[in-house]
């Protein structure tokens, strides 16, 4: 397991307006993140040759977790969002009317916020449209 994951993020249905009107974003997140989703901290300082400590079966230090979609939400809100966070998040999840898609699949089929992100994943946030 590498010490970070690279992601492709897309916004649609008007959500891009909250993110500097940019639909596509590239993002790199640490593989291990704080369990409380606080995005201010750095990941635990790992020596290059203790990299195996982050392998899939290795125990993870208390207070840390593998990076998941819930952490991604917090990261986007704290670092990429330009305005009005309530139009993106509601408590610990996306606000009503937003669909999250992981590699072109409804996140509900992938474990929602608990889905552990893999290198190269594409996550799309789309606001449902009502016009006609």
């Amino acid at each position: 397991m590498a010490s970070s994951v690279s992601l492709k993020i897309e916004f649609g249905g008007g959500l891009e307006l909250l993110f500097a009107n940019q639909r596509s974003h590239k993002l790199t997140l640490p593989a291990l993140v704080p369990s409380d989703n606080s995005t201010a901290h750095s990941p635990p300082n790992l020596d290059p040759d203790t990299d195996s400590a982050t392998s899939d079966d290795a125990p993870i230090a208390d207070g840390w977790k593998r990076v998941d979609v819930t952490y991604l939400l917090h990261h986007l809100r704290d670092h990429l969002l330009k305005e009005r966070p309530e139009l993106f998040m509601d408590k610990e999840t996306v606000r009503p009317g937003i669909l999250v898609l992981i590699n072109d699949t409804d996140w509900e089929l992938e474990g929602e916020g608990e889905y552990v992100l893999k290198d190269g994943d594409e996550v799309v946030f789309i606001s449902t449209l009502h016009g006609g």
Partner: protein
Amino acid sequence: MLPLEDYRRYGRQMILEGFGLPGQVKLKEASVAVVGAGGLGCPALQYLAASGIGRIGVIDHDVVELSNLHRQILHTEATIGMPKALSAAKAMAAINPQLKVDAVVQALSSANATELLGLYDIILDCTDNAPTRYLLSDVAVTLGKPLVSGAAQRFEGQICIYNYGENGPCYRCLFPKPPAQETVGTCEETGILGAVTGVIGNLQALETIKIIVGLKDQAPSLLLFNALQTPPFRSIKLRNRKPACAACGLGAKTQGMIDATDYVQFCGGPPANWVERGL
């Protein structure tokens, strides 16, 4: 089975593999309700009418305005001021005089929706607001009918079939809580490119025809369209029906919920410009 003239009229689609005479007969015996005769409803109605479907109900209480004409291609300058349902019915009669059209100039509500839509096999959601979308989904669940739902704003569109097949989700399975008022734009506020509603409405007609003829698979999916993106289309694999859904889940009392719900209040009350528009 079919009048001789129909073989000439529909011959080009009757020779299609998987369609044939049985497909054409199914269309003739089918009835479809199209709710909304605007940007999505016009292209949907036009291709449904031309295809040989037997009966179409068009439900809309708005009247044609000049600002509709850049995208609502069944209406003309001559029908400005006429109820959209009547204007659309007139256009459909010109395309296909054999078609039976029910033009319903009424606002759909909790009180009349189940009865009105109960007359048709399939329901198309071509509306432009969240309350009616929730109402239509709940009614489709009560009636056990598929809901072919389209939406479009700006340069984007979405199409999804709800309440279809063994495991298909309803609108509430995907969106249990309505979005807050301020997150919902309308075509009046956000703008819309006419040809985008055309693409989505056209695809709604196509999906409806596929369901009737038996060419539609049942895997829940959502198609996203953005006219400015490459690639412009994206297909999404959707969740199944949710057992805990308030509308279609186990033990849900859907008709009771419809009767008890004020859908406009449920979606946060009328926005300022609805009040202006007298809704």
